[in-house]
């Protein structure tokens, strides 16, 4: 048995009102690749943030034992000094600096007063070779692809003398080939340098491929640790661990909602990435939604769900959009969000703070923003009494907790912000609402209330498309479910027939096929699909 490099003992981390981590235990042996898997919001990233000192010592309970001693990290630098380096999902590279400059940013080579560029680039080249990157270290970051950038990040970590490398979703923005190369690099580092690595990933086939041990995190607790040598680590087995909970009455029931005609239909919809114009982010997608129906679109992050929704909503994302959009049985062309709103569409963004709300404005102002015509004469002169009335009505209806409608939205909690966002779009009076991750980052109580609002919308004859990466939510709330993966719709089923396993199987199924072709992972569960 190898030496235990890292042990996290009964870690508990509480955010105001939420227990993000509850008595988590994690043991990582030297020289192994350890995978952390779990659904979104299960607590994986929180755990790694605790480890790297982003949440400093004292803000959590429990011990971190690293290399035999109890560690108290107060900031990232502390953990980096010990050789714990975390590579975040969002790459932290400066596009207009060279690879070499990026690698030694904050750790410049040379004397205190003068950077030794020869040494910098020589060192950089050495580490680049280690990760199998042949580009010169004098290349600008913006000139290399995302796959190579990820390798630069790893080289950068190696240059910091990393002993424990944490990779947070390293392949989420990579294509098949680049992902495979990255995983092989991980294996190579393990073999040649004895590097210890923790990988966080949603892509279970990759986890099965690369990991020695797999720890499953669910609802802020570690459920089990599987060993690739002794246990079954097939994807179905991992899913069972990840999901493993019963769907109880966490979802309010909809009674007597009549499902009407097709309200909106999208046919053969294809969208290209706005920057990498050869990449399809939505590939030949056809979906429809009826009046009074709640349609779920399930998919992991990066599957193209948001891109689909935004491109339908007045082409607010992507280029080279092709396909047909039918509204109430008639073809429609929506070239701007304004036209989309006029046509009866609403898109409730997943990124509340970035794309949804004006945080520096009041609840009142946010509520009426998408429908100022409704509270003004001639679309110019605002009727502020009416505005107040409207805002108060929605605060009451959605039970938003706030002292007054004059409260700045930036001062509200996540759940209440989400309600203001919903209020804004409900006031715009759409026929079709696209809700993108409507319950992300809000607590259980507020979630239940959001579900009730969704049900009320359906009862009022609206069509609701709910995009979510939480399986129980999709199954519990939808009438019908589309499953999306890698820019395509890979399955459609009635909610009554859906189980967590067969939805996951749809996703795995596609992967399984492509992998069988590559003859890499023979024991795929694709046959179930």
């Amino acid at each position, binding site marked *: 048995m190898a030496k235990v490099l890292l042990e996290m003992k009964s870690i508990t981390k509480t955010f*105001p*009102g*939420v227990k993000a981590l509850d008595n988590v235990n994690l043991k990582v042996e030297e020289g192994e690749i350890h995978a952390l898997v779990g659904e979104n919001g299960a607590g994986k990233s929180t755990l790694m943030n605790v480890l790297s000192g982003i949440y400093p010592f004292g803000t959590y309970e429990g011990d971190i034992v690293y290399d035999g001693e109890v560690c108290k990290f107060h900031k990232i630098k502390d953990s980096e000094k010990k050789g714990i380096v975390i590579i975040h999902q969002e790459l932290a590279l400066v596009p207009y600096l060279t690879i070499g400059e990026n690698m030694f940013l904050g750790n410049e080579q040379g004397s205190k007063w003068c950077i030794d560029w020869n040494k910098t680039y020589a060192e950089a080249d050495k580490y680049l070779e280690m990760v199998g990157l042949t580009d010169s270290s004098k290349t600008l970051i913006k000139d290399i692809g995302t796959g190579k950038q990820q390798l630069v990040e790893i080289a950068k970590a190696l240059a910091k003398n990393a002993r424990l490398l944490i990779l947070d979703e390293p392949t989420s923005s990579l294509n098949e080939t680049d992902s495979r190369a990255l995983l092989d690099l991980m294996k190579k580092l393990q073999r040649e340098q004895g590097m210890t690595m923790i990988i966080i990933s949603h892509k279970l086939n990759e986890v099965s491929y690369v990991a020695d041990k797999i720890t499953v995190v669910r609802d802020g607790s570690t459920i089990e640790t599987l060993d690739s040598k002794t246990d079954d680590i097939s994807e179905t087995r991992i899913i069972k661990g990840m999901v493993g909970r019963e769907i109880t*009455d*966490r979802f309010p029931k909809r009674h007597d909602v009549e499902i009407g005609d097709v309200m909106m239909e999208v046919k053969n919809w294809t969208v290209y990435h706005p920057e990498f114009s050869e990449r399809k982010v939505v590939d030949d997608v056809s979906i429809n939604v009826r009046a009074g129906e709640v349609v779920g679109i399930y998919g992991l992050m990066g599957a193209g769900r948001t891109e689909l929704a935004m491109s339908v*909503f*007045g082409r*607010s994302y992507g280029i080279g959009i092709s396909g047909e959009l039918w509204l109430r049985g008639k073809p429609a062309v929506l070239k*701007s*969000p*304004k036209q*989309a*709103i*006029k046509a009866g569409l609403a*898109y409730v*963004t997943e990124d509340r703070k*970035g*794309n*949804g*709300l*004006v*945080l*520096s*404005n009041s609840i009142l*102002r946010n509520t009426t*923003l*998408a429908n*100022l015509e409704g509270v*003004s004469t001639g*679309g*110019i*002169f*605002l009727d*502020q*009494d009416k505005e*107040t009335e409207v805002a108060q009505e929605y605060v009451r209806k959605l039970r938003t*907790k706030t002292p*007054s409608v004059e409260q700045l939205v930036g*001062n509200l*909690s996540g*759940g209440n912000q989400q309600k203001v966002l919903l209020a*804004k779009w409900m006031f*715009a009076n759409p026929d079709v609402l696209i809700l993108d991750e409507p319950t992300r980052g809000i*607590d*259980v*109580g*507020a*979630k*239940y*209330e959001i579900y009730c609002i969704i049900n009320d919308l359906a009862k009022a004859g609206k069509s609701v498309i709910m995009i979510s990466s939480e399986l129980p939510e999709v199954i519990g709330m939808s009438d019908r479910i589309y499953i999306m993966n890698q820019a395509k719709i890979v399955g459609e089923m009635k909610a009554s027939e859906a189980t967590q396993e067969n939805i996951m199987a749809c996703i795995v199924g596609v992967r399984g096929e492509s992998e069988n072709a590559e003859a890499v992972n023979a024991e795929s569960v694709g046959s179930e699909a």
Partner: protein
Amino acid sequence: MGANKVINFLRKYMMLIATVLVVIGFYFITNGQSLNPDSIDRLISQNAYVFVLGTGMLLCILTGGNIDLSVGSVVCLAGSVGAIIMDKNLPWPLAVAVMLVMGLLVGLWHGYWIAYVKVPPFIATLVGMLAFRGLANIFLKGKDVIVENKDFMNVFGGSDTCYVPDFFRNVGPKLTFEGVALNKTCVVFTVLLALGLVIYTFVNRARLVKNGYKVDNFLVVIIKTVLIVLVILWFGYKLASYRGIPTAFIWIALILALFAYITTKTTLGRNLYAVGGNEKATRLSGIDTRKVMFSAYTLMGVLAGFASILVIARGQKAGPTVGVGFEMDAIAACFIGGASAYGGTGSIGGVIIGATLMGVINQGMNIAATPVNYQKVVKGIVLIFAVLFDILMQMKRKGAKKKKKTAVEAVTTEEGGAKS
């Protein structure tokens, strides 16, 4: 909670308090000269352009901290064209119209580049700053052009007679206060204004109460109203004991009132705040954010044109150096008045306070015979303190909020748990 309230109060009124303190300070430094009726009168006439340009600048700043560097040059350009027209003995209304149209054209020009071609505002208006001043110099052939049209100056405030005529001069007995004859029109106007304000405040409050809205404490409202009325009466008295209401004051009041209305009561105003607060969210709410940017710079242009009218009337000339540094006065007025350098917050009220504070400091130092270069240093320091104060207060408030939020969220989860 208590501390939070104090901080919120300070944040809201700090610059007002500071202005009052500065006024009192200069009163003592200048042995009371700074509050003489003629000083008050000059305060308005000399700073008229700051109010007008500050108003336009606020619109630009609201859209996301964008500024317009060209306004000084635009004032110079439009002013020189207007002066030349009057110099050729053409009717002055034509000159006024041309100056406004020039401002409008400049605004459209900037708006187009900034909103539709996405040239950064800083660069687009820097281009204007250079080019328009050059153009003005070409028109002026490098020399001053004197404005001699009396009617023009009377209407827009420049000479000794640029006051609202005393309509009631011969009505009733002579009005004096502490031995000084008062301008009766000004007195009547002041009293009417004060009365109007009182009536509006209480009628509006009664209406709000009737409709069930939350209103301020009655006592607070009374104190506030009394204070404002006192300031109005004092101000009116000062003007009345000099020569009455300067015409420039009427123009500023009109502009400020119009734009206060636009920013608070129209969709355009709402859109300006929304774009500055979160451009993406605003676009996704179906608002044409380009049009909003375009409108902001167009209005700025028109206001710069209008400011040029006031400036050449006051200076009685147009010249190559007219308007140098005006953009900085306008920007400073906005920031001192609490506009955010990132956009989304700020108000006409803030501009009024900012412009007044700058004006008071300028004039106080002039009377106290402070060398010009020192004056600039002082103004710079005032600006950094104003902004620093705002940042500090925001940090404090966030700290207080965090504690409060923790408590609120704990309650939320409890309730949620009970429901599910």
